[in-house]
C-alpha cells in the first residue's frame, strides 16, 4: 500500500500523478495483461478496461448497484446531530445514486428538461456567455483556456437552469471541486462541500415553495410521482446532482477539447472550413478524452469470468478506458475528427446514461465554435505547464494558451 505503483494489474492507483496526466499506456497494458485489474488502494476496487466488460457491467444493474458512485472511499457515516450531513448521506444524488425501482421514476422526472429541444433554448445565452468570456482575454493574446474559459461556462449554464444568480458560479465551482476533486481523497473536505451545497439548495427550495418560478427547482417541486408531490428530500438530492454532475464534467470536456485543438492545427482548420462537422467532432473528442469514471457496488458474491467478486466490492467504471479499446475502435488513440462510427460510452451505457448528455454536447459544441470563430489559431504556451485533475473526472485545470 502506498508508494509508487510497481504492478498496475494488482496495485493500480487512480490518483497517481503520472497516471492522471497520461493514463492511456496503463490502460493498454491492463487490457492486454489483466482486463479487470484490482487494487487495495483507496479502499480497494476492481477496474475493467475493455469496452465489452464496461458495457456488460454497466447494464447489469442487478449485480452492480449505483448506491455509491464515488471512486474514493466513502468515509465514516456522519454524526447524527449534523442534520445537513445526515440529509446528504441519506438522500444521495438521485437518480445517479438510485437503483430501480426508484431510479425509474426519478430519471423520468429529470429527462424532459434535458431533452434536445429544451437544451436548444439555452443555446443563445450560452453562446453569448462564451463571447463575453473571450472578450475578456482576446486582446491580451493569451489566456488560461481551462480556468478563464472552460471552467466558467458550465456553472453559469446550470445556475441559469436552477434559477440561481450567475454570480454564484465561482462559489459553485469551489464547492464542486471540494466535493469531486480536492475532497475526493479527503472525506472531511468532501463532507464540508456537501454540507455547503445542501444548505444552500435547501434555502433555494424554501424560496421556490413560497414563490414558484419557471426554473428547474420549481419544476421538481411541482412534479408528482404516483399522484403525490415528489418528496422534498428527493428534490434536494436531485438539485445536488444537477449542481455536482453538470459542472466539472463538462468543463473537463471543453478543456480537453481545446487542449487537443491547441496541438492539432489540421483539426482546427478542418472545423473552421467545415463547421457542419462539429457535432461529429464533439462525439470524437468525447470518445478520446472521456472525463468521467463512475463506481458501482457489487450486490452479491458472484463469478465474473475467472474472478470472484464479493458483496460490497467496488468496481470503477472506466468509461474513458473503454473508449480507447482497439477491439471496439480502430486506431483508438488517434483523434479522427470525422470518425463516422463511434458508439462511445463517455456518458455511460444502460439505465444510468448521463441525463445531461444533450446539455453537455451543446455546451461543448457552442464553446468550441465560439472559440474557433474568434481564435482560430492558438497553441499551448508550455505543454509541460498544463495541470490535470483526475480520479472521478479527468480534465485540464490550468492550460495557458497563446494566440497571435
Amino acid at each position, binding site marked *: 500500500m502506498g508508494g509508487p505503483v510497481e504492478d498496475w494489474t494488482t496495485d493500480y492507483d487512480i490518483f497517481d500523478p503520472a497516471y492522471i496526466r497520461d493514463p492511456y499506456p496503463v490502460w493498454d497494458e491492463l487490457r492486454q495483461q489483466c482486463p479487470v485489474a484490482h487494487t487495495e488502494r483507496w479502499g480497494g476496487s476492481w477496474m475493467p478496461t475493455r469496452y465489452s466488460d464496461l458495457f456488460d457491467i454497466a447494464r447489469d444493474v442487478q449485480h452492480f448497484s449505483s448506491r455509491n458512485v464515488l471512486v474514493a472511499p466513502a468515509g465514516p457515516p456522519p454524526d447524527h446531530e449534523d442534520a445537513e450531513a445526515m440529509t446528504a448521506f441519506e438522500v444521495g444524488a438521485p437518480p445517479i445514486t438510485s437503483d430501480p425501482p426508484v431510479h425509474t421514476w426519478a430519471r423520468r422526472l429529470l*429527462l*424532459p428538461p434535458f431533452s434536445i429541444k429544451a437544451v436548444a433554448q439555452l443555446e443563445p445565452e450560452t453562446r453569448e456567455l462564451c463571447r463575453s468570456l473571450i472578450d475578456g482575454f482576446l486582446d491580451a493574446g493569451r489566456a488560461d483556456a481551462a480556468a478563464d474559459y472552460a471552467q466558467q461556462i458550465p456553472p453559469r449554464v446550470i445556475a441559469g437552469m436552477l434559477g440561481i444568480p450567475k454570480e454564484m458560479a465561482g462559489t459553485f465551482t469551489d464547492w464542486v471541486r471540494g466535493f469531486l476533486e480536492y475532497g475526493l481523497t479527503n472525506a472531511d473536505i468532501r463532507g464540508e462541500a456537501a454540507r455547503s451545497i445542501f444548505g444552500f439548495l435547501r434555502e433555494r427550495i424554501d424560496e421556490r415553495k413560497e414563490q414558484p418560478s419557471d426554473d428547474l427547482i420549481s419544476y421538481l417541486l411541482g412534479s408528482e410521482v404516483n399522484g403525490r408531490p415528489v418528496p422534498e428530500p428527493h428534490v434536494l438530492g436531485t438539485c445536488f446532482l444537477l449542481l455536482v454532475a453538470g459542472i466539472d464534467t463538462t468543463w473537463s470536456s471543453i478543456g480537453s477539447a481545446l487542449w487537443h485543438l491547441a496541438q492539432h492545427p489540421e483539426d482546427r482548420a478542418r472545423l473552421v472550413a467545415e463547421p457542419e462537422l462539429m457535432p461529429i467532432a464533439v462525439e470524437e473528442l468525447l470518445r478520446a478524452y472521456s472525463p468521467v469514471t463512475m463506481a458501482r457496488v457489487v450486490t452479491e458474491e458472484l463469478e465474473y469470468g475467472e474472478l470472484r467478486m464479493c458483496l460490497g466490492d467496488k468496481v470503477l467504471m472506466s468509461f474513458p478506458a473503454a473508449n480507447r479499446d482497439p477491439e471496439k475502435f480502430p486506431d483508438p488513440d488517434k483523434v479522427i475528427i470525422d470518425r463516422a*462510427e463511434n458508439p462511445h460510452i463517455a456518458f455511460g*451505457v444502460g439505465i444510468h446514461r448521463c441525463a445531461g448528455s444533450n446539455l453537455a454536447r451543446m455546451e461543448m459544441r457552442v464553446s468550441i465554435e465560439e472559440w474557433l470563430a474568434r481564435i482560430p489559431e492558438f497553441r499551448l504556451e508550455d505543454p509541460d505547464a498544463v495541470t490535470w485533475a483526475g480520479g472521478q473526472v479527468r480534465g485540464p485545470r490550468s492550460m495557458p494558451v497563446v494566440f497571435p
Partner: protein
Amino acid sequence: MRVRVDGEKCQGHNRCFAVAKELFELDEYGYSHEIGDGVVPPELEEKARLAVANCPERAISIADTEEA
C-alpha cells in the same frame, strides 16, 4: 430496408436522431422511435447504417424490407 428501435434497449442517447433525423423521432423523454413504418428510402440507407453503428445500446436494427 427497414429500420427499428428496440424500445427496451433505447436509453435516449439520441445518437440516431443526430445522424438521421429523417428516420427517427424522439419522445419528450428523449427515447427514440423509428418514424412511421421504418421503411428507409434508398438515399437514406447509409444514414440508417450509421444510426445502427453509433448507437451505444445496440438498440437499432435493420432488416431487408422483404424480410420485415
